[in-house]
């Protein structure tokens, strides 16, 4: 039996920190196992005559990607316009507003499009994944899969992971293009620049490396959103209240993980 901590508050604090640390390590371990099992089923499933369902991947791709295009485009266009307006306003103080395109292209491709897409997908699809899995868990649907000899990771997690890995970078690319295009409308009107000159400056300021930087990060975000959604969904306790709790937690954790991972990625990539 675990020893009860004494009544003193420092000991209780130490115990709480210990429990939280163990919980965090367990969560990372769970993520690792899930990722490993998903990769296993994606690669070895066909050989074992238990392939990942392409129909489910296609359905998830529609949910995660295609249906999200309007909102991603709207927010990306808004961000692009804000960057253009703010950039010109700030640079005008130094008489350098013509340089706005250089900063705009790189910041959109390396950061803004990636972050806005990641956060949107976390809020939209990460929460949906957590809610779906937690509801299935409560309704014993995941137990039903197990007893039917259907591995839940192959049936539920691998299709979601594949769909996210394909659609989050694709959405990020859509976001990049939309933000740059929307910014271009304002820049060309405000600075009297032609569209050809604007795009030419964008292409000369953004390298292929910048594009890979952005798309690479979006793939990492896709993995994080999926794993956090799944782990939270599977850990549900209680009824409808539990579903609400894990859904909220999944969104908060996903967005936090995206921002922290972005900071680490940028730090490493710019050394």
């Amino acid at each position, binding site marked *: 039996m675990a020893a009860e901590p004494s009544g003193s508050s420092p000991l209780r604090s130490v115990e709480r920190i210990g429990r939280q640390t163990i919980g965090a390590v367990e969560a990372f371990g769970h993520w690792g196992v899930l990722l490993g099992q998903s990769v296993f089923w994606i690669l070895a499933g066909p050989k074992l005559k238990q392939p990942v369902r392409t129909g489910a991947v296609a359905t998830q791709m529609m949910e995660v990607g295609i249906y999200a295009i309007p909102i991603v485009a709207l927010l990306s266009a808004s961000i692009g316009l804000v960057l253009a307006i703010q950039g010109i306003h700030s640079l005008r103080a130094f008489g350098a507003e013509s340089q706005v395109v250089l900063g705009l292209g790189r910041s959109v491709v390396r950061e803004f499009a990636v972050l806005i897409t990641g956060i949107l997908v976390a809020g939209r699809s990460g929460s949906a994944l957590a809610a779906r899995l937690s509801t*299935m868990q409560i*309704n*014993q649907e995941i137990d039903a899969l197990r007893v*039917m*000899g259907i591995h839940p990771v192959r049936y539920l997690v691998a299709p979601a992971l594949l769909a996210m890995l394909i659609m989050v970078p694709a959405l990020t690319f859509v976001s990049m293009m939309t933000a740059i295009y929307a910014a271009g409308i304002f820049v060309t009107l405000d600075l009297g620049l032609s569209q050809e000159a604007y795009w030419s400056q964008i292409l000369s300021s953004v390298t292929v490396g910048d594009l890979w930087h952005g798309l690479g990060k979006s793939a990492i975000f896709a993995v994080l959103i999926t794993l956090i959604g799944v782990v939270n969904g599977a850990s549900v306790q209680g009824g409808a209240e539990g579903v609400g709790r894990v859904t909220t937690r999944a969104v908060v954790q996903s967005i936090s993980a995206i921002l922290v991972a972005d900071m680490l990625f940028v730090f490493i990539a710019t050394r």
Partner: protein
Amino acid sequence: MNVNDQATGAFAIDVHDLVTHYGDRMILKGVDFQVKPGEIMVIMGGSGSGKSTLMRHLLSLETPTSGSIEILGQDVASLSTIEKAELSKKIGVAFQSGALFSSMTVGENVMLPLAEHFKLDKQTMQIMMRMKLGVVDLDGFEDLMPSELSGGMIKRAAMARAIVMDPRILFCDEPSAGLDPVVASALDDLILRLRDAMGMSIVVVTHELDSAFKIADRITVLDKGDILLCGTVDEIRNSNNERIQNILNRRTEEESLDHDEYLEHLTGIEVPPSPAM
């Protein structure tokens, strides 16, 4: 040796000295029981007796602390994921809640095990699905969503999904819980019909006495993680065991104690005997 050979003449299920803990609490205290091929075994007990935990172990949804479970001659603890998937083709489970997938129609739910385990064309699967829905009296309901079914119909649809691969063993978790007596009785009849028509071993976990006595070939009575008695309906009914009589008469343990014993039970302090008159 294949599974069919192993199971011939042997037990369909053989549980030996099963012990399980949740944290420090011992839930199953060395459970031993067997289910013969073609028999209906009812596992009965009150709330907290460990019957649901036992069921989850039989379905390999939980791992015991110690002991062994053999299903159709195979020790489930030693099976790989792929071997477990193979064994699962010979097992059907009807969960208490039905556990139908809410995003699929009733027909798709019933066809799911077929679609996942066999390379059958859609038409063949549909024929098999309609046959099984017919067995549970749900003809024509294949296009409805689970949310459009009543409680009894959900249980029957779950039963159809459980038997779609003609399993050797069927597990039913609280099949008549939450149903009115007429629908519950119809489900009991269905279980008997399935045993007679398909010759499968059936394990039913329930706390409904009427249902248990109606369908059981043998009953295992669980109480606080122990098996009190495993026997036929008559053996259970005629048992002198006080705890079994409490369960049969729907009495709580407290009600069966006399006042002094009850006070002692609550306070832990021995009550002195009353002075003789």
